[in-house]
Structure formats: C-alpha cells, structure tokens
C-alpha cells in the first residue's frame, strides 16, 4: 500500500522550495554568486587598467603575504601587507578590549535596573546602533579633529596653545570603532546578565565573598558566554571595517578593508583584491564558527 502521508510530504517540500525561491535567487545573484566569482578572480591575472585577463595565475594568492624583491628576485615577507594585517588585528583586539571595559559595566548597570526600566535603557543602546554608521563616525570626527569641539574648548580655556593631533592616528580609529561597535558588546552581555539569578550573588556574599570576589567567581563565570559572544561580535566587524579607518585614519593608517579597496582603485590589481577579500572572509569565518560553538553551548546550558 502506498504511504499516503508521503504524497503530502512531497507536496509540502515542493511548496517550501517555491516559497524560498525568490529570496534565494536574489541572494544568489547579489550575495553568494558574486562571492564565488570573487574566488575565481583571485586566480586570474590582473589587467593593465583594472579588471582581469582570463589567464590562470596564483600570483595574487602568493602576493597576499609574500613579495619578490625587485632587485635580486629573492622571496621575502610582504612587509607592507603584513603591517596592515597586523594593524587590523591589533586595532580590532584593542577595540574589543575597550568595548569590554566599557560595555560590561554598562550591561551590568542596565541588568540591575528595575525590570520596567530595562527596556528603555536598552533602547538607548539600540538607537545609536541602528543609526547611520557614517553619521556616527562623522560625529566622533567633529569632536576630535584639530578644529573640532575638544581642541576648540581646550584652546579657549588656555590649557593648550596648539590643537592636539588626535585625528588620523591609530587612537582615532580605535575611538571611532569603539563608538560604533559598543552596542554589539552590550547586547549579548546584557542578554546573559538578565538571566542571572541574583540569589546566587546573595549566596556568594553569604559565603564571605567580597564584592570583587563575587564579580570574579560568581557573576563572570555565569555571563561568560555573553562576554565571548560580545567580543566576537565586536572583533569581526572591526577586522573588516572600511568606513571608520577611511574617515578616522585619513589614508595613512590602512586596515585590511582599505587595502582591499586600494587594489580596485589605484592598485589596479583585482585578483590581489579578490584574494585579500577571501583571506579576510576566511579569518572572519573562523571567528564566527567559534561564536556559533559558544552560542550553541550557551543554549544547551540554559535550555
């Protein structure tokens, strides 16, 4: 006898894919597909005026980290690229750390507000997050540029004679990224913190722990998944940042994103740009996989 429920199941599968088709087509056309083509481009030869020549070549991948000396043809590390990669990682780590230092107490502060006020405090965190990244970067820029608010005030007060050069430094990039990505740190930490049972904190004090010991031995271990999630959520976009280093770094302090753009502009080396993009994507994917594992674990713990 035929399985009647199987016919129904087949029909359901067909319906499902028909419903999914429009979204998948758009995404294939303007997200996944182009990514595959980028991968292909990374194995081609650059054209003279941008674009590519369809000749297979591994030069682009070779040039991601290495370079051939122009004079004696010896192989060496590509110092220019390595220093940009190193700056990207360094600035992203510092940004993550700064976000943690500011974000953790903020999340804690919100989680310890009366229940009916917490949503409002969170809204205050979320609003900047959904407002234009460029505008927020620009707002910070106005604050710290030589003729900006801070320098103007300090000069007016007679504390300094010459404006302090804050813009176009690594500091200004970090400041910009912290400002832009801070909500990404607060959100997951708050999510963990809100579920924290404060009777455990009471138990900690009951068993003679000091405030700091309660923080370190009771609160931190319990909200660790949120801290890790927040750190990765800040680290990943920092690593791929393009607008903030462009505006705050002023072309002197390149990060990977700017290096990639350069290959499509003045560099006219599309395959290298493609290879750098895929490299960045690979690093980000590793970080995201780590995040998925942490998030999965957290779900099990609280499930």
């Amino acid at each position: 006898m035929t399985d009647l429920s199987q016919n129904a199941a087949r029909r359901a599968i067909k319906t499902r894919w028909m419903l999914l088709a429009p979204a998948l087509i758009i995404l294939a056309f303007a997200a996944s597909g182009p990514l595959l083509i980028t991968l292909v481009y990374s194995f081609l030869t650059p054209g003279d005026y941008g674009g590519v020549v369809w000749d297979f070549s591994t030069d682009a991948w070779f040039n991601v980290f290495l370079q051939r000396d122009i004079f004696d043809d010896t192989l060496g590390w590509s110092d220019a690229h390595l220093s940009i990669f190193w700056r990207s990682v360094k600035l992203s780590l510092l940004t993550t750390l700064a976000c943690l230092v500011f974000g953790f107490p903020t999340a804690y502060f919100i989680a310890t507000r009366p229940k009916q006020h917490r949503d409002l405090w969170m809204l205050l965190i979320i609003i900047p997050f959904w407002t234009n990244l460029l505008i927020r970067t620009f707002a910070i820029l106005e604050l710290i540029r030589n003729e900006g608010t801070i320098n103007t005030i300090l000069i007016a007060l007679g504390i300094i004679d010459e404006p302090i050069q804050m813009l176009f430094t690594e500091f200004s990039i970090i400041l910009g990224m912290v400002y832009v990505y801070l909500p990404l740190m607060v959100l997951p930490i708050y999510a963990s913190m809100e579920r924290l049972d404060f009777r455990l904190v009471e138990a900690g004090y009951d068993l003679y722990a000091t405030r700091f010991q309660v923080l370190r031995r009771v609160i931190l271990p319990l909200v660790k998944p949120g801290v890790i999630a927040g750190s990765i959520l800040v680290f990943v976009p920092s690593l791929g940042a393009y607008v903030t280093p462009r505006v705050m770094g002023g072309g002197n302090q390149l990060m990977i994103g700017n290096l990639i753009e350069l290959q499509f502009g003045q560099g006219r080396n599309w395959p290298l740009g493609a290879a750098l993009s895929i490299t960045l994507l690979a690093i980000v994917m590793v970080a995201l996989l780590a995040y998925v594992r942490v998030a999965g674990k957290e779900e099990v713990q609280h499930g």
Partner: protein
Amino acid sequence: MTKAIKAQSLRKVYNGNPPVEALGSVDIEIEDNEFFTLLGPSGCGKTTLLRLIAGFEHPTSGRLEMFGEPLQDLPPYKRQINTVFQNYALFPHMTVAENIGFGMEMLGKPKSEIKATVDEMMDLVQMSEMADRQTSQISGGQQQRVALARALAPRPRILLLDEPLSALDFKLRKSMQLELKRLQTETGITFIFVTHDQEEALTMSDRIAVMSNGAIRQIGGPRDIYDHPADRFVADFIGDTNFLDADVVGKDGDLTALRLTSGKTITASAHDDATGRVTLAVRPEHAQLATSDEGLLTGQLREVVYFGTDTHLHVDLGDGTTFVLRQQNSPDMPANATAGSTVGITFPPAAAQVLRD
C-alpha cells in the same frame, strides 16, 4: 445504514529517529448521531486519530470513510467536519461574532444567512450579549462556548472535540459536560470527543473506545466498559479495581467455575477461551465485608481510610496482595471493623470479571 466514520487498518507513523507509531492499524466504526468518546492516557493515539479524521494529519496507510465516502484525500477545508480545539484556537484579531461566522463565510454563504445563524448559535451557547467582544476579553468558559458555537455554526455532520474541557475549573467542567450532552441531543450531530478523563467519558458518552499505545482496547457503552472491562488495561484505567488470580476449573453454560487462591470456588462470566490461570477483576464497591467463615477471601484488615462519602478498607490477603473495599457511609452505620482484625470478603458472581491478558 452507513457509518458516520469508518476506519479500516488506519495507521499513522511519524517520521523521525526512531519513527514513532502513533496509531497501529485501527479499525473503528462510529454511528451517525452518537456521542462517541476516545478515552485513554496521553500518548495513546486518541488525538492522532482525531487529527486524521479532521484532516490535519495524513494516514501512513489504511482507509477512512465518512458516511460511505472516502475521506483520506480530502483537505480539512473540504470535510464537513468541524473541530473544537483544546486551547479553543479562537482568532485573536476577530470578534466573537466574526469568529462564529468565519466557517459560513468561507463556505460563501449569504450575509443574511450568516447573521441569522450566528445569532442562533450565540443564543444556543448563551453568549448573545458578547457578540462584539474581542476574544481576549472573555473568560475561559466563555471562550469555550464561542469555540463550540464556531464549530457548530456551519452545521457540520461530525463535530470533533479535543479535550475541550481540560482547561476549565471543576464546577464549570461539570456544567459543560451536561451542556455538551444537551447540544449533541438537540443538534443530532455526531460528536467525537477525546479525553483522558474517565469520569467525563462515562458521564457523556453513548459509546466509548478505550485506547492505549496506538490501539483500541475495547469499545462499548459506559456501563459495559465499567462493569465488563475486556482486559487488565481497561479495568485498571477506568475506575479502581482489585485484581485476583484464579484457576478455571469448569464451565457451565455462560458461566465459568473458578477457584480462588483461598481455595473457594466461585462462578463468573468469562470469555470463551479462558483456561488455566486467569486474572479476575472486582470493583471495590462491589465487594462486602463478611465474617471470615463466610468470606470468599479472608485477610487482615490493615487500614480504614475515611473519604467522606465512603470508607476504604484495605485488606491484606496474606499472599502479598491487598484487596480494597469501598463502603458507602451513612450516619447510622456502626464502625464495625477495626484495623488488625481478621475479616472475610464476599462479592456476587456478576461482580467478578475474567480479563483477557
């Protein structure tokens, strides 16, 4: 006469690892115009059977007919069957009247007819003043009535009720039981009622199907099921029962002679193939205390538990089993038995039922 519902070898297996057989080859016939109850513990397959009839699930195999017409290929919206859902499933974005009229609207009935029927239905379930309320603004009992009216309004040939009373409090449940029975009699619609509450089933049903593990254990009227449970599961699930071991020693027409563990012999009704060691079921209220000489069984009275309407006497039969008797209390009844004394137990032959294994 054609049956309201006829199921043949109806089987439902849920895919998964491992696959779950929710219903294993069930045969059932439900008469037109009857109040039929599917009774069983959770996971017995009663809700699956109901959902197969409603069309929310597709059978893995088997046949399903409604008044002689094959049903298994019809989607739910083409079946003249309506459901009262366990959580009522009232549409939160519609008023009471809109909810009740929804089915007829979908059937494309003219507005005037819808209005008339909605009014009539709200009258029937005594909800007339609530027509324009949102469903979130009425109480649980009222939601229950609206759900009922909504399912009855399109005049289905069969009404399915999936534990509709389980969310109500005790008193409301009692009055709704009588109300449901009244509605069924008045409308003449076949009701198929799913419940795990044996008392609910016994009060309302014309016939009951007791289910467990995806199979039907017994179908019969309430008295039939209670007084003559077919097997140990039914006897155990419906009411309280004492189980006794006995040996078949002879047959005399419809009656079978059985020897109890006490050595005494009784006669009882039994199925035809009962031989050797069998299990006997005796309801607590069908047994009486007697002197130890008169008793079919003797034992030591261990506990006397007072329950208000009746008293439960726990008698240790000495072979590791305890026999429970239930005595109706009355003001003039002497406290005749005290814990620790040796007592006898008797019961009439009709009270003893030989069970299938």
